[in-house]
């Protein structure tokens, strides 16, 4: 029991990291896009849990809402709309997959090299620094909102214009000719 209280968060990290990796491998290897989408949902939820474990409560919930809700419904809707199970997919991977494998191995070697070079040490997190704005302690959502509406106000407005443009673009693209 003492072990669990001391290392529960670490064990949860390993559990959710394994789930996220399993979902990601499922996305890439599943033949049916429907199973791929369900694997992707598994990855989204596991990543949301990993956000929570790193103190990003607001983003964890946003991840579940936006990815697990919005984007996943969009994917499932399109998969059902195009009705892919009637279409024969002759080969799972295209002719570029040896090249893609080489690219993946190169990326892994590149990142692995850096992990042998760098040591970040223990986290510098001090809760009183992490969650304060204007000298008072805030919750995570409040602190993120404070940042969004003060320092990052211009990017925030640009993001809303971007979403409007994306919505119009999607409607125009999906319209019947």
């Amino acid at each position, binding site marked *: 029991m003492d072990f669990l209280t001391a*290392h529960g968060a670490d064990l949860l*990290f*390993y559990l959710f*990291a394994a789930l*996220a*990796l399993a979902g*990601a491998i499922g*996305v890439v290897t*599943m033949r049916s*896009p429907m199973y*791929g989408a369900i694997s992707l949902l598994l990855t*989204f939820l596991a990543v949301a849990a*990993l*956000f929570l474990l*790193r103190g990003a409560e607001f*983003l964890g919930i*946003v991840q579940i809402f*936006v*990815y697990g809700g*919005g*984007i996943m419904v*969009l*994917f499932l809707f*399109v*998969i059902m709309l*195009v009705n*892919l199970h009637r*279409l024969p*997919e002759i080969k*799972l*991977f*295209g002719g570029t997959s040896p*090249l*893609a*494998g080489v*690219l*993946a191995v190169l*990326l*892994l070697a590149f*990142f692995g090299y850096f*992990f042998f070079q*760098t040591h*970040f040490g*223990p*986290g*510098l*997190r*001090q809760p009183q620094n*992490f969650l304060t704005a204007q000298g008072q302690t805030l919750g995570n959502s409040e602190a*993120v909102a404070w940042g969004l509406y003060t320092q*990052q106000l211009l990017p925030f407005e640009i993001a809303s214009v*971007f*979403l409007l*443009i*994306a919505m119009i*673009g*999607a409607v125009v*693209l*999906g319209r019947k*000719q």
Partner: protein
Amino acid sequence: MTFAVTTTHYLVLSFLLFTIGVFGIAARKNMITVLMSIELVLNSVNLNLIAFSYQLSDLTGQIFAVFTITVAAGEAAVGLGILISLFRLRETTTLDRAAELKG
């Protein structure tokens, strides 16, 4: 303990997700799967931002991740719109069939 989770653990997980996503983008023929792999890559970047936000005790990483999620939502909407257009035109979602510009 030896298995205490550090920023490096998050980075390793994030880079594994990134590599799997890049492999999916480059290797798969089905456009829906390619779009889902792009979402994997964006998610791995978000994981990185959160890990460094914790490491550096700075909220800017979390705020940037909000913008990444916004862009991911827009990208998914437009990408799936393009997919619908392609399906109307070709009756398929296989990327090899969209080769008008190939010389």
